[in-house]
């Protein structure tokens, strides 16, 4: 087996709560691998730290501990020029494409700027590359003349991706890339990720709350709750046989468009709210809301292989049975 392209070990990102001076543990010991040319999913509810993880990976937040290894080298101990060139290999796609583009620049200018940053000095070469990049995201080259506000949401998001591609990345970190788009145009952007993977071997960390979208696109999935990974594995195995009670609850909440199914389905309704990441519960972080929590859950949960293809961090994986 080859080494993963991006290998994250025990990553921690803490913020200081300015009011109390305590640490907010947004990411608290995350280990995660992304292989070359692989789409990996990261799911969880808002506030679980999945966005913070993505932002830490591209240097928008400072890590408090752990390692981010790209091609075997730890980014967190790297400096200067080397850090600068390595960092660029990991690019980020924001949730809202409109606010991640400058309103005062045309799309062509924005992409050209990214090329200048990447060290392309020749203006003619830059313009040729802009056309290539727009083509790579299936946008006509006249789009280069447009301002972001003159484009549709799907076009904007594809333009953002084209700009990221200007840095010749190996990994795209996509934070809710389609949640601000209309349902009927989400496919344009999602299929683009599949295409970029197939044509350029671009790896992708797909951070999303929509479990169905992640399932369809990603070959492997991580489920995150309150700063920790609860369950991870191949999509087929994890979705087909979810073992962690949290994953089960999440999946049971995904609505179906079939009203007949929807009428007589069983949901695992979780009690209470997500606890504060300042003082997370000891042991299993989910135990306060878990329907099958036992006293032993106050100790750190073991990582148990559910089957050959996926593992869960739980004392009782697969023990929560859906009634009915």
């Amino acid at each position, binding site marked *: 087996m080859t080494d993963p392209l991006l290998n994250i070990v025990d990553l921690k990102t803490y913020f200081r709560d300015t009011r109390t001076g305590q640490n907010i543990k947004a990411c608290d010991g995350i280990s995660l691998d992304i292989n070359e040319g692989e789409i990996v999913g990261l799911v969880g509810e*808002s506030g679980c730290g999945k966005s913070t993880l993505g932002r830490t990976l591209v240097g928008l937040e400072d890590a408090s501990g752990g390692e981010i290894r790209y091609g075997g080298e730890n980014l967190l101990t790297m400096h200067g020029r080397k850090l600068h060139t390595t960092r660029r290999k990991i690019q980020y796609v924001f949730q809202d494409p409109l606010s991640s583009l400058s309103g005062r620049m045309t799309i062509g200018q924005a992409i050209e700027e990214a090329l200048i940053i990447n060290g392309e000095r020749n203006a003619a070469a830059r313009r040729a590359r802009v056309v290539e990049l727009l083509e790579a995201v299936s946008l006509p080259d006249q789009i280069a003349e447009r301002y972001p506000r003159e484009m549709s949401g799907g076009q904007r998001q594809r333009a953002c991706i084209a700009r990221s591609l200007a840095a010749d990345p190996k990994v795209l970190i996509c934070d809710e890339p389609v949640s601000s788009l209309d*349902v009927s145009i989400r496919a344009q952007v999602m299929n683009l990720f599949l295409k970029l993977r197939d044509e350029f071997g671009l790896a992708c960390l797909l951070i999303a*709350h*929509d479990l169905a979208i992640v399932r369809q696109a990603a*070959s492997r999935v991580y489920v995150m709750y309150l700063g920790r990974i609860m369950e991870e594995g191949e999509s087929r195995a994890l979705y087909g046989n979810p073992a962690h009670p949290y994953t089960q609850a999440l999946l049971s909440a995904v*609505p179906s468009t079939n*009203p007949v199914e*929807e009428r007589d389905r069983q949901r695992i309704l979780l009690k209470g709210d997500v606890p504060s990441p300042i003082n997370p519960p000891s042991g299993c972080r989910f135990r306060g809301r878990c329907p099958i929590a036992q006293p032993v859950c106050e100790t750190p949960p073991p990582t148990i292989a559910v089957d050959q293809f996926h593992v869960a961090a739980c004392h009782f994986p697969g023990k929560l049975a859906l009634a009915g």
Partner: protein
Amino acid sequence: MKDMHDMNTSLLEVANLSVTLHTAKTSVQPVDNVSYSVKAGEVLAIVGESGSGKTIMNMAPLGLLPAGVDSEMSGSVRFEGQDLLSAGNGKLRQVRGGEIGVIFQDPLSALNPVRRIGRQIAEISERHLGLTTKQAEKKVAELLALVGLPDPLSRMQQFPHELSGGMRQRVGIAMSLAGEPKLLIADEPTTALDVTVQAQIVELLKDLQKRLRMAIVVITHDFGVVSGMANKVAVMYAGRLSELGSVDDVLLDPVHPYTRGLLKSVPSLDSEIGSEFIGLPGHPPDLSRRIDGCPFAPRCFAALESCREHRPPLLPVPHSAAARVVACPVVLNSHAEAV
């Protein structure tokens, strides 16, 4: 005869409603000749993507539009027989929050950040039901318990920012119920929420609807919410109704090409892992331009030359429930042949 009876029991009767908005730069017509009705105790879902006019269609007749926008409405919106479009501001204020409750997408924007929750809700009961302060406070405690807030008495003393997103939406719902409405208009009530919380809120709304025998109009882009709580669905595209019918008919056997495409675009937990995503080509039309034929024609697989020339009428679907109408003669013809 049956139709007469239906007309009489309709709580909300919208007929040929058009809304035009004028701003300094342009005029747009986000709602174009729409008719539908809601009976007492019924849940109607209005589905559409952004810019389909679904929110403006419901908010404009109630006088709830952003500042700086001038609106012009034609047609009629009758609530319990009274036309809201010709009603004065005083009457509107009385209906809004009273007999018609409104739930907003962002509960925080509907709450005053510097006032206690209990007082804000109590005020509505005082105004619309004429309760005394004491009675209103008691009513608020009941309402908060009804929407499933634990420990309602101490919650009443809290400020909106002290609550989580799900709790806030519950407070928003309690507030919309404070005037004992007969009709609840819920604008994207679950969009800002996580899936697990979303499931809770849908359950809650369904439960409240049964217990209080209200009618609900839920405005949403999420078919999950539609299938979870609605009896009837209206699908909107570019300010027009494209399909209207019972939830089982429309969701299980969609007829209009737009409804079909939209339903197929929703990824499900049954789709093939690693397969291509299905969507619709192109994008919605510019509503400030005149649309001659069917607004969906440029994106439609079944479009004929005639679709671009004449506006397709809403026609009943043959061999189907009487209330089911679709604005696509092309598909209706082939549908009739197939059945």
